[in-house]
């Protein structure tokens, strides 16, 4: 990759990367890797990681689509969670340094790769699929354009985990608090006109932890690489929980 860039247009960038391989390392450490990046065009953090991996092939991270769609390269970039593949170096670099760590709050499998099990366990609890009770219609269950529109800003979530792993409430009670990603999905199905399990879904969120541990810090909103707003979804659910008390 670097071979095709004329040497005059290169500049050295120091990457500072979290390394931990549980089968050889006693504890995690930070490793400096210097790479040559082009000065005349922007590249993404993921590209920088590929360049670093050329220098040290043992460096491990996840990626797949490299266009912000699969959600596999969520990581902590200079202190803020984001997707490496769509985060330009020009935005990420601070003081000519790029520090990469795994997303906080989840067990590290190796280097920048975390174990997402807790995250997906919480997602599973909100039953992220349509639940219907009425007889299936002949064709599909139709929605009006307005009903469909109410799902905008909800269905786009790619489950990268950036939000939940930036949420203090999720760090502290990862088994009890569902976290912003799962709650956004919960609202996505509560808000869906075709779903027929709203009451049951709300019942499941009525306890003191699943939803009510959100303290409205909005870390989730500030990191979501898709620009979604889990805090708003959470307050929509809360309003529903409160208003059904009165009825």
């Amino acid at each position, binding site marked *: 990759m670097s071979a095709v860039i004329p040497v005059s247009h290169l500049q050295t960038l120091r990457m500072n990367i979290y390394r931990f391989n549980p089968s050889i390392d006693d504890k995690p450490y930070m490793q400096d890797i210097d790479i040559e990046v082009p000065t005349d065009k922007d590249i993404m953090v993921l590209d920088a990681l590929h360049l670093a991996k050329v220098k040290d092939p043992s460096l491990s991270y996840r990626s797949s689509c490299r266009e912000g769609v699969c959600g596999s390269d969520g990581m902590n970039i200079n202190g803020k969670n984001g997707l490496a593949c769509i985060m330009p170096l020009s935005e990420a670099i601070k003081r000519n340094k790029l520090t990469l760590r795994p997303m906080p709050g989840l067990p590290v499998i190796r280097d920048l790769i975390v174990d997402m099990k807790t995250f997906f366990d919480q997602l599973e609890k909100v039953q992220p699929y349509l639940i219907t009770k009425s007889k299936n219609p002949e064709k599909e269950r139709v929605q009006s354009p307005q009903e469909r529109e109410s799902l905008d800003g909800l269905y786009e979530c790619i489950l990268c985990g950036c939000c939940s792993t930036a949420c203090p409430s999720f760090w*502290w009670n990862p088994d009890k608090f569902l976290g912003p990603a799962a709650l956004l999905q919960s609202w996505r199905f509560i808000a869906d006109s075709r779903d027929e399990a709203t009451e049951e879904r709300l019942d499941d969120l009525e306890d003191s932890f699943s939803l009510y541990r959100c303290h409205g810090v909005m870390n989730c909103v500030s990191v979501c690489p898709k620009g979604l707003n889990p805090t708003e979804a959470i307050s929509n659910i809360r309003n529903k929980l409160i208003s059904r*008390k009165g009825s």
Partner: protein
Amino acid sequence: MKFLESGTNEFLIIRACALFMFLYGVYLIYFVVSNPGMDYLLWKSFFEGLVIKVFSTLFLISFAVHTWLGTWAIGSDYFTPARLGGFSKIVYVSYRFICFLIVLIVFIWSLIIIW
């Protein structure tokens, strides 16, 4: 869902108590501001009325409930196994005990003063 295990109830109770304490505070400030040059006798007679005694008691109940639920939320955020590992239980229980003692002492002591 039991009444006390409902996050919605806790959410509403905490806010209702806060609102009541706020209004009580506003009323108290109003009383002070509208009586310039207030002396001890006026202050004392103000708190001797039955209505204000009842409201002060309600304030104390709000304070106790609000503090109890609020400190519970803080404790169950911070003193969790995810943060403190095996120690979390003992830290949490001692913390709750101290909260309980403080709330109880303040509550009873203030009641004695008011009535």
